[in-house]
């Protein structure tokens, strides 16, 4: 590990943590515009986080240490994930320690802890949300793994930097397997990030919530970390999507000049992705919760198709 790659790693992590709330603000802004509403400030998520950090935390009397530590674990897991995903450059020393399967494991770790914390307090809504989260999670994870396996088959490695290097530096051609995988990944991302059509991040109806129901009992710094973590999760998923399907502009190892261009390219791609997400959320209604298996089943099917196409057609 050189100093340069270490710095690259730090820079990438810092950008992820710093820009994640901005991405959420941008999606909210686009959604408001698409609904003919005047949009909230782009910086609103930052202000919300700052406001929450300045408040005193209220914790239920029945809360165990799991409830208190979960925000830190979830935030930590999302930071680790951000360090693995090559968003700016592929020269990531940390990524050597964890491959794509470990990445899915990190997301699962965060999910397990947030579900445990939700049930820890003993309120009906926490248990309701945790139950639904696990229900969505066990359907989404296999589909996500299949998508990553498809990319691994193309590049011959489960290490994300290697996958990106392989995908970014091949001749320009449309891979049918990646097209299937791309659709599957989009569907999984919507479900995993509690977006419409699976969950509604802006709802106030406690009976319909999934993610929001689990964090209902949190306040102040705990809630701030969880909000930040869910912004990071959205950022991570966006970067995974960009790394797998639009890897152009990500700097290769030792290419300092490319690194300068990588940051604007990333922001540009994320901005486009945010608009696309806002479009999907504006145009669709929320599914009945028992339609989620159909939705995620379709995602899994498409991901398997992508693998089959890759194996049979070699593309």
């Amino acid at each position, binding site marked *: 590990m050189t100093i340069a790659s270490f710095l690259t790693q730090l820079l990438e992590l810092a950008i992820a943590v710093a820009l994640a709330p901005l991405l959420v603000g941008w999606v909210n802004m686009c*959604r408001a515009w*698409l*609904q*003919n*509403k005047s949009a909230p400030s782009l910086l609103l998520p930052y202000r919300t986080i700052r406001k929450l950090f300045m408040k005193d935390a209220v914790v239920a009397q029945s809360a165990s240490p799991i409830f208190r530590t979960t925000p830190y674990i979830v935030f930590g897991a999302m930071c680790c994930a951000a360090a693995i995903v090559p968003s700016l450059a592929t020269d990531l020393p940390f990524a050597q320690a964890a491959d794509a399967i470990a990445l899915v494991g990190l997301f699962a770790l965060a999910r397990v802890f947030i579900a445990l914390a939700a049930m820890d307090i003993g309120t*009906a*809504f926490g248990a*309701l949300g945790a139950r639904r989260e696990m229900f969505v999670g066990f359907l989404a994870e296999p589909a996500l793994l299949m998508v990553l396996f498809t990319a691994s088959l193309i590049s011959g490695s489960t290490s994300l930097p290697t996958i990106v290097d392989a995908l970014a530096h091949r001749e320009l051609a449309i891979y049918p397997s990646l097209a299937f995988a791309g659709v599957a990944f989009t569907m999984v991302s919507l479900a995993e990030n509690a977006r*419409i*059509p699976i969950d*509604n991040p*802006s*709802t*106030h*109806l*406690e*009976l*319909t*919530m999934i993610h929001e129901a689990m964090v*209902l009992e949190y306040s102040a710094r705990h809630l701030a970390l969880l909000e930040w973590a869910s912004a990071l999760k959205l950022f991570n998923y966006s970067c995974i999507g960009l790394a797998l399907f639009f890897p152009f502009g990500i700097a290769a190892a030792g290419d300092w000049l490319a690194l300068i261009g990588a940051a604007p390219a990333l922001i540009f791609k994320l901005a486009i992705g945010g608009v696309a997400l806002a479009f999907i959320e*504006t*145009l*669709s*209604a*929320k*599914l*009945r*919760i*028992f*339609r989620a298996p159909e939705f995620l089943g379709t995602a899994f099917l498409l991901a398997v198709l992508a693998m089959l196409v890759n194996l049979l057609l070699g593309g």
Partner: protein
Amino acid sequence: MNLSGLGLVGAQLPGAIPAQRVPVSSGQLLAACRLGWEQGSRLVALWISDDRDRARGFCLHIALHDQEGVTLLEYTIPDASSAYPDISTIFPAANRMQRAAFDLVGVASESDDQRPWLWLASWPIDKFPLQRDFVASPKWEPGEETYAFVKVEGDGVHEIPVGPVHAGIIEPGHFRFQVVGEKVLRLEERLGYVHKGIEKRFESLRIGEAHRLAGRVSGDSTVAYAWAYAQAVEAIADAAVPPRAAWLRALALERERIANHLGDLGYLGNDGGFAFGLAQFSRLKEDVLRLNLAAFGHRMMMDYVVPGGVASSLAAAYAAQIREQCPALEREIRILRDIYDEHAGLQDRFRTCGRAPPDLAQQLGLTGLCGRASGQEFDLRCDFPLPPYDVIAPRKMTQTDGDVAARVTVRFDELLESLRLCSALIDGLSDGEVNAPVPEPPPYRLGLGFIEGWRGPVFIALETGPDGTIRRCHPHDPSWSNWPVLEHAVIGNIVPDFPLINKSFNLTYSGHDL
């Protein structure tokens, strides 16, 4: 309703709606109710008044209505210790009305269900606010109340308590779900959290000023309540309303319907996860409310309807604006309706969700807009057309599916119909006075008001006291009949669909808890 089979003769009550009052004895009460049920009558309201100061004990009033008009059964109860027959075996909606009547007046029915309904330990259990010798004391400390919810036992069955404080900014009400997984086995409501003592407050007001309180029973139906109250006063005082005032009242009532339907349609989209609908419909509703403020002096037209007419005339410029707004709204609503109808995701949420089939609706007495979505073809504007409804002839909008989609369809249909009515009302608006003096009503008379608000028929029974005072005033919201049906409509649905079903009913808490 023809009660001559029981040998009962009714005395006609004065007023715009045909009504008769029939004194019954204890043996005749259930027989009269059963005969009414067989003839297709529906329970409107049940209340008790304390007439001990006039040496008449307590009087139980049961208002039924059918296509011929309102029948008011009156049964005298000698003292608070004697119970009256349980009506809920014939009209299930009477259960909560009987319990509420006990909480307020202290006369019980013979029903097995004697749980309190409006009493939430905020006053001593042995004090009854609507008894004439009741003295309110500010020293009462709120107590603890334990309410016996019906539990469902079984493997995997558990409870979800929701409310009375909710995550969103809505009125308070408690919902107790018994679920297995996501499936609702039973829902039980607990209301009463917004009991404000409106009926007691009426007794301290004068007849000429209480229309303002009536207009605040449920803010979204302020025109309907104020009109119903005015109708009751005018019936007792035998006062006529100038034609222009009647037309303006109808215009206000239809605009209230338009504003509420617009709001509901937006929220129904939003609860289906389709926020675009909320943004669009809210914008349209806001246009209506702003023009209300300019033309009627209040966004929701509070205090516009007064006994004898309306508070102010409508300037020609605003009449023209309202006339112009109708086709503009209609154009946009038709576009939005197409979007709703063709949105597969939204239709998937709406269809078959929260069904109240017509036979259940008929059995439980589902009324108003929700009733019309379940094949209950009652609309006071068509059944007993008062001026100007006899001229502009509204069409009755009905559906038979009884699901959320049907209630959305009825809302769209009524919205477009109300826009047509508004245009017709402006076109046919005559010149003249908008207010006629109302003579002081004679004491100890009963007057009824019965107006089809946007939610359903709003009922007010007013009894005058000496010197222009109010002896008893009972406002009754259609939600009384519809809240119990919501409990049935939810059974078998999944928990996350409840907010959508609840919103499609959109019942009032304030108007119910009083």
